[in-house]
């Protein structure tokens, strides 16, 4: 009995050390400056299975070298049931080391999520299915509920985007406006509603999930879109060649690290094997609240993965 417990503990220790070594072996190459805003992005996480746990471990290990302050969740936080035990199994246990370090998670609702998740304290939604938060001067996040984009929410989004004088406007929600995923793909019905707003009020970056892949979309009308839907599920070979992809990854799991430094949005996407899948910088070159088409738009400058 005691031997089997020792074996289990040793197994957990080996897994943790492996995850740490894996990430250590593949340096986190963001600028890693002192006073920058650092955060992580995960999507389609709530399976409670070994894939979610493995990605969570690599994410926790990455935080050793890249101390992100919060994590953005782009929906499908809880697949299947969401009984109290599910909140533990699909969220609190896998991310325990990160939660214990005082890192906040900000969730958006996916189509597999109960609307009552908005009450859950650790998702920091404050009882709202759409909300905004400002982690630092000059940066504002807009969490939307893309499952139910009713006129009330659209009006709210317009009001909040208009009122925001922030330099950086980052929207996150579940359904991708642009995606090369064969399973779902671009949600054009949603795009018709949101894209004009995003353009009018100069949203810089949009983070989504739903398709179980990672994809960086070629900038669309001045906006940089990412799909990060592979933090616990992968739909292998799901990315189609339809001319949208700047970089795609549909063979493994992963998450994104982001560092905001002045006008630069540095990102690095890391797989569950600790390998860098994509990295680069989105550069803002617009004045706050200027129309998106008034100046050259965000520019993505991909960097090659760090060599070791």
């Amino acid at each position: 009995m005691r031997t089997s417990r020792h074996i289990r503990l040793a197994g957990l220790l080996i897994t943790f050390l492996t995850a740490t070594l894996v990430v250590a072996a593949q340096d986190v190459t963001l600028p890693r400056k002192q006073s920058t805003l650092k955060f992580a992005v995960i999507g389609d996480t709530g399976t409670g299975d070994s894939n979610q746990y493995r990605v969570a471990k690599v994410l926790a290990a990455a935080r050793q070298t890249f101390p992100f302050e919060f994590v953005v969740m782009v929906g499908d936080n809880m697949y299947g049931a969401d009984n109290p035990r599910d909140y533990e199994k699909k969220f609190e246990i896998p991310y325990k080391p990160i939660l214990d370090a005082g890192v906040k998670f900000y969730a958006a609702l996916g189509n597999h999520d109960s609307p009552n998740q908005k009450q859950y304290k650790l998702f920091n939604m404050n009882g709202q299915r759409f909300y905004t938060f400002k982690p630092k001067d000059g940066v504002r996040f807009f969490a939307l509920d893309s499952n139910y984009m009713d006129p009330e929410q659209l009006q709210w989004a317009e009001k909040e985007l208009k009122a925001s004088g922030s330099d950086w406007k980052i929207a996150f929600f579940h359904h991708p406006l642009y995606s090369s995923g064969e399973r779902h793909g671009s949600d054009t019905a949603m795009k018709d509603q949101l894209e004009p707003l995003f353009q009018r009020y100069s949203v810089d970056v949009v983070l989504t999930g739903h398709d179980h892949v990672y994809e960086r979309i070629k900038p669309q009308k001045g906006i940089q879109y990412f799909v990060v839907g592979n933090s616990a599920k992968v739909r292998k070979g799901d990315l189609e060649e339809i001319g949208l992809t700047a970089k795609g990854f549909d063979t493994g799991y992963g998450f994104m690290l982001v560092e905001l430094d002045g006008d630069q949005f540095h990102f690095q996407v890391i797989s569950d094997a600790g390998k860098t899948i994509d990295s680069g910088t989105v550069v803002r070159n617009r004045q706050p609240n200027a129309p998106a088409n008034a100046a050259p738009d965000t520019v993505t400058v991909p960097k090659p993965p760090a060599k070791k």
Partner: protein
Amino acid sequence: MRKPRLLSALALLMIWLASAWTVRVGAQNADAKVLAEFKAKVDAYDALRKDLAKKAPPLEKADDPHEIAIAEKALAEQIKIARANAKPGDIFTPETQRVFKRLLSPTLKGDEGVENKTVLKEDRPPAAKIPLRVNGEYPKDQPLSTVPPDMLRALPPLPEAVQYRFVGKHLILYCTRGNLIVDYMLNAIP
């Protein structure tokens, strides 16, 4: 000779236009009346829900998963008791269903219709997985359908705690707080 004929043709045209306008205005008034009744019924449900929520642990103050589950369940039980006699069609009356089908119809036509159908087809759960019962709990292991924004704009607005969702081709009124099906409308879309 020509003038009187022209005048009578004009008069006939005016009579026809006037009657067409009367029919149209009459139909609009009838729709407005049906939608007003629908709104009143949904508002009554929401008022009841709010009232019953006072007797259950407050969901607004629940932030722990156990508290959320307890509050949701307790509210659902209260609603089931209070609406024990509720029947399918109490809110989605036959008249409401006719108007709703007419309101939804344009959102399913043209290019936008294709987009909206795609969204509905992708995300809506199969009807076989969700028993359609008034006061029935929505199965927690099934996703909630994504409802295209066009459709939400076409349909009358709802209180914050009630939403339109699709189950297969059927439209349900879903109470988010109690996780309950308030009423349903079969074959709302073709």
